[in-house]
Structures are given as C-alpha cells and as structure tokens.
C-alpha cells in the first residue's frame, strides 16, 4: 500500500519535472536532434574507478563529440562513500548527467525518483540485451538504467603448486575440486585455498547455485529468508571451502587483499574476480607465469557453480537538463562497437550475448563466461541495498557459522537486524 503510494508520488514527481524540463529547454527534447542543437553543451559522465579503460573513454568521447558537437567529460569516482555521493549528487540542481550505478544498487536508486526512465531507449537499442543482466535496471515494470558490463568470480590457481601435488586437470565438479584441495594439503606445504570467512559475494553465488532466496514475502513486505535450509546448505558448502584455508574467519576478501596473499606463492588457489590476477602480479611479478583460471565447478559437470553476477548499469539523472544528449551518449557507449571494445579491453561480460565473441583469447573471461549463464544477483528490490550496508549482517552470519554455530542458530541471531533494514522506508 505504502509502496504503491510512494511509487505514485515518484511518478507524479517525474511527470512534473519532465514537463518542466521541456518548458525550460525546448530544443533539447527534439527527437532527431542534429549536431548543431547540442553545440556548446557539456555532458558529464560519472564512471567508477577501474570501470572504463582509458582507450575506451577516448574512443567514445571522440565518437560522441563528432556526432553531437557537444563536449563529453568523464569524471572518475572513487568507491569511498559512493552512496552518499550519488544520493546527494542526485539531489542537486546540477547533477552528473549520466552515472554508473552498481546493478544491485539500481532498484534502490530507481525508487528514489532520482533516475530518469529509459523505457524508450530500451525499445530503441536494448531489445537484445541479455535478460538476466537487464533485469536489475527494471523497477515497477519500467527501465531505469541500461546494462553496461558484468563480471563474475572464477577460480584463480597456482599452476606450480598444483603440478607439485601431481594434479593434471582442472576439476569439473565440486567434489573433484575438494579432492584436489585435499591432495594439495597432503602433498605440498601450501595452503590449498585462500578463503576468508566473509567472501560474501561468493556465498551469494552458492545460494544462487542452491536455488535459495535470501528474502521472502511476508504479506506486503520482504523479510529475511536466511533460515531456509537451502541457504544453510549453501553455507555448508562455503564452510567446506573455508576449511582449506588459514584465512581469518571474520574478514572479507579485501582485508588483506586475497590476491596479495596469493601472490606470495604459498596458496594453491583463491576465488576472485579476473582483475585480481593483475593485483597479484603487481605484488609479485614472478607469479604471472604460474597463474591459471577455471570456472567454479558445480555439483555436476554439466552445470557450473552459481555465481554472483556483479556489474554496472548506466543511468541518467532525473535532474539532468540534458536528457536527450544523455541518451545520445548511451546510444554510442552501448553500441555494439564500443560495448564490444569494452568487453575486449576489460575482459568483462557485455550486455548482449552476441558480443561475447570479443572475449576470445582472454583466459579469465573464458573461464568466467560459462559461470555467467548460471549467474544471479542479490534480491532485486529497493529495500535490499540497506542490508548490505556496513556492517553487513550476512557477513556476521557467515563468521558465526564458521566459528561453530549451526546455520539455523546463526541465522536467528541476525534475522532481526536484516528485517529491520528491509523495513526501512525509502
């Protein structure tokens, strides 16, 4: 009831501001706006640190400026305090026109009314967007962002250690993987796997693999579903993985950076994003030749493990006075040419299946791609974003289980906090 009312207010608010924009700046709304009408304008685009390779930004900028005659300014944002930054920026009279928003954050921002609706754009350029990656941009049946790129975790392993343990092939099933880790533990003095207690997105992938949902509906609101046996089953798998590691049980993969620990050459493998291989090489050049990758194996050989499909969407700020120009930008940036270039340069999964050919020859991306088909996200509801705020109660849950609590008891301990966060009004 309240949500519907809220949505109605959002829509009403948007209609007002859209028409206000039209009145302010008539020439900007023209559909077939040619280069001249945009002259002298500057479009500001916020991308996150590491998202857009410099070459890509340069190419897109050149194409954009040539086509529209307007200027394009990329502003690279750091992750620190990004939520406050985006929320406050969207409230300003002069917000960034286009911004990168994490896929799991998109529903929450869509619900605030801060993002412009892009359903028309989807009709125009997005009919063949991969449904699973486009889904996060849909709120209340409307498109509020455009899928940009995605990535999922793979196993990054140390070939030298695996060879020393006498293992020839990479595992095809979870049990084979565990057997290999056992072998490494027995035959070498290396830590078989580096797995800290709070690699929560890996755990999310496991719940997706188990077909578990982290939230369920209770009447008209969402509540925690952490005590579901399927979630417990996923946690048991995680516990088994963690048993191969000496890593801290109450830290996530960034403290310390797991790639840096791995770079010392004393861990058999870790589960991480493709770019983390680069972090490892940066810490220790010698590790480069020993790096290998494979898809996280699932219960059976024909279906890889579920993975969290992290990624980013591009959204247009509702308060931007350059709506048409922003859409022009999206059309160029997301065109097959530049979307393909991004996939190629960064080894990320593009928004269309047809473009995945660009990943050929990229070992990491080739290992990641099969997993993506079994990928999922966190619950795509606006209320979810609050759950992941620091301190993330699910991380506490993971630590408790690893420290010996039963999954049911550990779930009980944090469910009140999760429900409280899910109940927060928007």
């Amino acid at each position, binding site marked *: 009831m309240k949500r519907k009312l*809220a949505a109605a207010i*959002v829509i009403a*608010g948007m209609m007002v501001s859209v028409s206000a924009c039209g009145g302010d700046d008539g020439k900007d709304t023209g559909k077939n706006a040619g280069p001249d009408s945009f002259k002298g304008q500057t479009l500001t685009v916020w991308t996150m640190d590491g998202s857009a390779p410099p070459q890509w930004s340069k190419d897109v900028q050149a194409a954009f400026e040539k086509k529209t005659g307007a200027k394009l300014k990329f502003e690279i944002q750091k992750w620190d305090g990004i*939520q*406050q930054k985006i*929320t*406050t920026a*969207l*409230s300003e009279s002069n917000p960034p026109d286009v911004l990168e928003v994490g896929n799991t954050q998109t529903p*929450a*921002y869509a*619900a*605030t*009314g*801060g993002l412009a609706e892009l359903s028309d754009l989807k009709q125009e350029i997005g009919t063949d967007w991969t449904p699973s990656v486009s889904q996060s941009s849909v709120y209340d049946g409307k498109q509020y962002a455009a899928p940009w790129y995605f990535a999922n975790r793979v196993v990054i392993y140390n070939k030298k250690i695996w060879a020393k343990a006498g293992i020839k092939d990479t595992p095809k099933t979870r049990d084979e993987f565990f057997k290999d880790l056992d072998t490494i533990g027995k035959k070498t003095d290396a830590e078989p796997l580096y797995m800290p207690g709070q690699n929560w997105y890996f755990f999310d992938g496991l719940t997706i693999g188990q077909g578990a949902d982290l939230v369920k509906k209770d009447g008209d609101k969402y509540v925690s579903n952490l005590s579901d046996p399927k979630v417990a089953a996923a946690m048991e798998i995680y516990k088994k993985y963690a048993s191969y590691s*000496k890593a*801290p*049980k*109450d*830290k996530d993969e960034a403290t*310390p950076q797991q790639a840096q*620990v791995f770079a010392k050459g004393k861990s058999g493998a870790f589960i991480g994003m493709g770019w983390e291989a680069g972090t490892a090489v940066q810490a220790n050049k010698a590790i480069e030749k020993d790096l290998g990758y494979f898809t996280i194996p699932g219960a059976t050989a024909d279906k890889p493990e579920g993975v969290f499909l992290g990624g980013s969407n591009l959204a247009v700020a*509702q*308060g931007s006075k350059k709506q048409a120009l922003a859409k022009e930008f999206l059309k160029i940036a997301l065109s097959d040419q530049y979307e393909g270039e991004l996939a190629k340069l960064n080894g990320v999964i593009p928004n269309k299946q047809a473009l995945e050919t660009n990943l050929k020859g990229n070992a990491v991306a080739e290992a990641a791609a099969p997993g993506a088909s079994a990928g999922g996200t966190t619950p795509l509801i606006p209320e979810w974003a*609050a759950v992941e*705020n*620091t*301190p993330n109660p699910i991380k*506490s849950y993971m*630590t408790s289980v690893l420290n010996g609590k039963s999954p049911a008891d550990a779930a009980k301990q944090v469910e009140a906090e999760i429900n409280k*966060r899910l109940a*927060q*009004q*928007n």
Partner: protein
Amino acid sequence: MSVQTEGTDTAGEPAVRKARIPGPPGSEDRGSGSPSRRGAAAPYLLLLPALLATLILLGWPLVKNGMLSFQNLNPRQLIQHLTEWNGGDNYKEVLSGSDFWHVVERSVVFTAVNVVLIMLLGTLIGLLLARLGKKMRLLLLLGLVLAWAMPVIAATTVYQWLFAQRFGVVNWVLDKLGWHSMADYNWFGSQFSTFSVITLLIVWQSIPFVAINLYAATTTIPRELYEAASLDGAGAWKSFTSVTFPFLRPFLYATTFLEVIWVFKAFPQIFAINEGGPDHLTETLPIYAFVEGVGNQHFGVGAAISFLTVLVLLVITSYYLRMVLKQEEDEL
C-alpha cells in the same frame, strides 16, 4: 555577575583606569555618552565576531539538524526535496530500541576509561618532563610532539598496520616474547581487543597534549612557593600535594573537561579502525549516529541520534559547566 563583583574585581581595573587616560581619537568622536558606557560596550563589540560566527555557522546547522530530526528523511526525500514531518517518530524509534541505551552505556564506559588513562599517564609524564635534564627532556618532548602531530587519519592507518593479523609487527613481537597464540591474532575480531587498540591509539595521541601543557604549567609555578615549603620541612611528596597540585588543579579540571569531550566525540579513530565492528560492538554514540544516519541513509533518525548525543554529553559535562558558571575566577 553582581554589581559588587564588578567593583571588587581586579580585572576590572584597566577599564576603570581607562577613564583617566585619553582614549584614541577615533573613539573620542562618538564619545557622546559617558566613558564608562563606552567601556561597557567594548567587550561585547570584541565578542561580536565570534558570537556571530558561532551563531550562523554552528547555530544554523544545529537548528537545521534539529528540524531534520523530526522528519522522515531518506534518499527519496533528499533527492526530491520533499519535507515529510513525522513528529517524534525518529526519537520514538531510537529510544524504544535497546540498541541506543547499550551504545550510551558503552560510550560512557569507553570515555571514562580513556580519560582516566590519559589524565593519569599524561600527568605523570608531564611531571617526569619537569624532572628530566635538558637533553632528555628535549628527546621526550620530541617523541611526544611527533605522536601528537600525527594526523588522525594517518595515525589510524598506521595502527591498523601495526596490529595487522598477518605481518603486523605487534603480533610478531608477542609471538617472539613467547606468546605463541598471538602469532596470528586477529585484533579486530572481538569487542575487547578492538577497543584495546582504539584505546591505545587515543591514549597515545592524547597524552602529549596533557603532558606538554602540564609541564608548561609547572614551569610557571613560582620557585618561592617550593622554597617556602621546604623551609617548612616539606618533603618531595608534601611539596607536591601542598604546592604543585593546588597550583595545577584548575588546569587539570579544564583539561579533563576537554579530554572528556574529545574522547566522547572521537570519530575517525573508531570508525576507520573497524567501522564500529565487529557486529556494531564498538559503536559509540557518534559512530552509531553516523552508521544509522549517513551509512544507512536514514538521515532523520541520524539527526535524532546526534541530538541525543549532545544531550548525553551535556549531562556528562554538566558538573564542570556548573562549576564554571558558579566560579568567581577563571580556570584556564
């Protein structure tokens, strides 16, 4: 504040004397009123800039913050510039939960422990400084000043590194000292150990202020007082209790007051070390307000908590504030 005070107050003398001394020509011009009235306006004029600045730059945000605490203010309202009054709902939400009272209790204990440690060790080190020879004193002063000057953000980072689980130098030393279970100890895994690190950090950074200022204060104690004391046959301890301590008492009061405020409000230290974790267990009031308000983007509730935080701080410091209000002479 009575008339009598003004008359007998020694500090008032210059103002009285002023009547006899020709004032600057500028002030003579507008001096249609009596000289004393001119003198009476002077302190207010001198205070005006400070008061105006405080009123505008502190008072205004405080009022705004107070207003926000009665609103339902989340990202949606902030982005769309909506004002949704919700009466005392935010306060009701905060005060009815058990979290808030736990945090208050924790903040008070945390503040007490830190302030006691700071004042005790700071005083001892300050007295040590007074006792040292010139060279050793300079050496220790240098150490103190370096610790004092470390910017909080840098210091916090350094402490995280010192206490890092892997490759942290503290764990290595404890291990070598025979405490082998500490070799891979995770300092940020439990409430007590996290608070220990935070306390060490805060005490390390705060002692220099107390010690150096206390040392400076002891150098202003007139020699004659000690001479008189020793003529009376007072030993070291006696001359400390009868001369040094009474002389330093106002200074100690004032410093304790400041340290209470600083420790209670300590924010970057606690937040950067472990973000109030593990499991919210090291959240003090300012952290709690920040996590609930800014972190969870529940700004109205955050504003309510911050208002309550000020109230708690007022209660804690009320003793000293009352003392200042009642006192005849100055503290600092």
